[in-house]
């Protein structure tokens, strides 16, 4: 799972008011190179919750993102490269996502988060 997806995911447990962002427990992170698309990054920048994104990147061991960002930074190639790398090239392979409100762990195996809820969580 990439941080792109992590930034969109929230905990769906019954009764949870703010299930975003899920805290990342990383056991294994892998990198896969993909081609950069500046237009896509600009569109995504509007949607990304930056604070959650930076925290997630730290949890994945990547510390090159500025703590604060505004759209003027999208003119900088260096910024775009980092944004691209953190958003699309880092994969959480093994670990867990943790609901910020209940502490419930959603295990991640082979890159796939198990978001299935127990019956009493629906």
């Amino acid at each position, binding site marked *: 799972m990439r941080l*792109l997806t992590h930034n*969109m*995911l929230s905990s*769906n447990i019954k009764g949870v008011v703010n299930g975003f962002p899920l805290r990342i427990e990383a056991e294994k992170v892998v990198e896969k190179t993909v081609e950069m*698309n500046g237009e*896509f990054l600009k569109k995504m920048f509007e949607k990304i919750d930056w604070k959650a994104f930076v925290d997630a990147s730290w949890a994945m061991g990547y510390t090159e993102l500025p703590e604060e960002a505004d759209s003027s930074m999208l003119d900088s190639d260096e910024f775009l490269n980092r944004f691209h790398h953190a958003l699309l090239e880092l994969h959480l392979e093994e670990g867990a996502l943790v609901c910020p409100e209940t502490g419930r762990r959603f295990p991640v195996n*082979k890159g796939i988060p*198990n978001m299935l809820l127990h019956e009493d969580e629906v």
Partner: protein
Amino acid sequence: MASRPEVVAPPEIFYDDAEARKYTSSSRIVQIQATLSERALELLALPDDDVPKLLLDIGCGSGLSGETLSENGHHWIGLDISASMLNVALEREVEGDLLLGDMGQGLGLRPGVIDGAISISAVQWLCNADKSSHNPRLRLKAFFTSLYKCLANGARAVFQVYPENIDQRELILNAAMHAGFAGGIVVDFPHSSKRRKEFLVLKCGQRSVNASMLSRSKNEDGESCSDEDSEDEENQTVCISDRHRPRKKPKKNNKSGKGKEWLLRKKEQMRKRGNVVPPDTKYTGRKRKDRF
């Protein structure tokens, strides 16, 4: 014909390792799913701007449908309840991110972030009650409500479904409408029992709900899949149960805007709501010259 998989076992049981492999290694299935996905993507009517979109593939299985999205340059997140299907997707190194999840439990996604969703041959599964705790109506509601929330304003969701009967179709459609979606069903090859395919085309948000929504039905050319019969005279598309428009409208060019009539109607609506709206003049909604 084998019986419908939905009546055999719950999806996470039916799609075990053996079935997942069998499903994905059938060239016939691969072909059909690719064709269905192409059509669904077309019905999504994404803006033609060459910018990759963030899409959902619901009931993504082994990634056959998602592959079509990748081929068209989009990023996608796939959700499926069968770990075996997802394992095959991993083996096939699909480009989308995969989630193990049950759509009937609702999607845990932030509001307004998804540019469009497709679901190929999956939603009819929600009509079954596989556990005593399952209520199809509630599960459909949870699914469509959460889908509506996570879609961006104006985004569409297209579902290719195999409803077992009219009741199932109504059940699904009603759940979608209750969640706030507008739209209806597009049927390709309506008179061919083998080739008939149904797509539920849903649109999210207030903007331009009716304009040309379902008027884009096309006449398929005779290209047929290897195992299908080709009843050329029946190669057409019809729309049934369109909630917003009684009949098909003549084809309109999407890019040419909404037209004067539409504009005047909108302005009238806005006035009724008490908004300040410029007066109608002979310039209202006139054709503009191209700028370049």
